[in-house]
């Protein structure tokens, strides 16, 4: 499952960066595309505005097939206060821009990529392409919510993959 989660994150991050190179954040001193996985970061980063925060919640495994089919629900949370120069009056437009970037990234064809194993990175190795793909459904948008001076939204995407033999 971890490989599927990591692969989807990498794919989404690349697509968001390609769609809007200016969507960046500074995290632990590094400038990077404005996409992060909450469980991979310090808890203090989880309300960072103007970026997409991935949160993995539900998971299921269908073992009735020749290969177990893993389905993971990914919540994508984002919020914005707009820009200070506009007194925050552009927060709705900023949220709409993030909606559009997310929809373009998730719904663009193909909605699958080759699954990668990132396990070797911890020991200085490189990623390894696996035998199967990770694929996902269309993005579903939740209602916009007001959080003090910010507007926020949570979108969800179902991410699926086959669990390969010996895979973590």
């Amino acid at each position, binding site marked *: 499952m971890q490989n599927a989660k990591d692969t989807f994150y990498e794919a989404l991050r690349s697509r968001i960066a390609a769609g809007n190179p200016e969507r960046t954040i500074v995290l632990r001193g590094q400038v990077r595309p404005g996409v992060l996985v909450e469980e991979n970061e310090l808890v203090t980063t989880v309300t960072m505005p103007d970026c997409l925060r991935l949160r993995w919640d539900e998971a299921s495994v269908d073992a009735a097939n020749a290969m177990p089919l893993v389905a993971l629900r990914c919540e994508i949370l984002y919020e914005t206060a707009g820009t200070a120069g506009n007194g925050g009056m552009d927060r709705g437009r900023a949220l709409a821009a993030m909606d559009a970037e997310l929809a373009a990234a998730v719904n663009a064809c193909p*909605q699958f990529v080759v699954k990668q194993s990132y396990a070797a990175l911890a020991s200085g190795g490189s990623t390894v392409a696996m035998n199967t793909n990770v694929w996902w459904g269309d993005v579903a948008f939740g209602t916009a919510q007001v959080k003090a001076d910010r507007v926020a939204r949570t979108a969800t995407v179902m991410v699926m993959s086959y669990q390969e033999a010996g895979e973590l």
Partner: protein
Amino acid sequence: MNVTTGTMPPAVRRIRAYFAPVNRSAQQPTIFDPAQQGLFDLSAPAAPWIDLGWISAFTRKSGTKIDALRAGAPTTVQMQSRSEIEATVSFQFSSWGKLQMALASGTQQMNLLAAQQGVAAAGSGGTAVAAVALESGSTATVLQVGTTAAAGFSVGELVVVDVDYTGQTGFVGSGVSGAYVKSALTDVDYVRRVSLNVGRVNAIQDGALTLESALIAGMPTAAMKVSGVVGFCDREGSTFFQEWSALFVAEGQQGERTLWHYPRLQAMTSVGEVAAAAGGLESLRQSAAFRALPVKDPVDGENVVCFRSFVAGS
């Protein structure tokens, strides 16, 4: 084939339809070779295949009858035979265009040619404005009509490009047969009325009309003329049967593809729409249904109506 996932059923999101002309006079369909073309770019099919976009409610039905031959006492099935071969396919188009309308109508589709002012009313369009002859240098995407005639067209306008009707009978229409003429008619614009050789003007400059996409019949001949089209019309009660070669592609999530190729599909229903709810409105989707006709597979001489292929992703 990917040995890891070779046993898994393809998980497909949706199905895409491609159609290609059948030479009706020669009964020659367009054959798709999955061994050579199975992994083609879905957005750029090789000519003469035309991308008709995504479809929904794709349903195949086999009407093939298998009979048991019994003998002995008590009778026991000794062998089986196929007594009838039949297959149908139906679906709904997700997009609404000239070809989708023509295919869904099940019969000939008329181009509503721009009519002359004050002519008698006609259900499929009154007497048309005189067509404009093509000048030399015209191509499948650029129509040279001269600066004077070009001023009579506008960007975004639909045009049809085809020959004058001169009393011919049989299948008519360039590129694709748009109708079958049983007895001679008098309308000089009749071929342009039924032709599928239609394009949309994208730009007009120096007497040339540039089209958004290439004409289905390719480079126009010197005998062809251009008429403006204001819309399309099909008729319940019309007798012509559309016949096309068809290819349906479902791409799985491992990059594998299932392809259904019907070399000859003839329309088997009349025009109809289905309404799909969308935001309180009714979205009219065109439904289409076809009956498959046979071709002979040169590999072994079998008469078949459909080829289903599976190709693994790269």
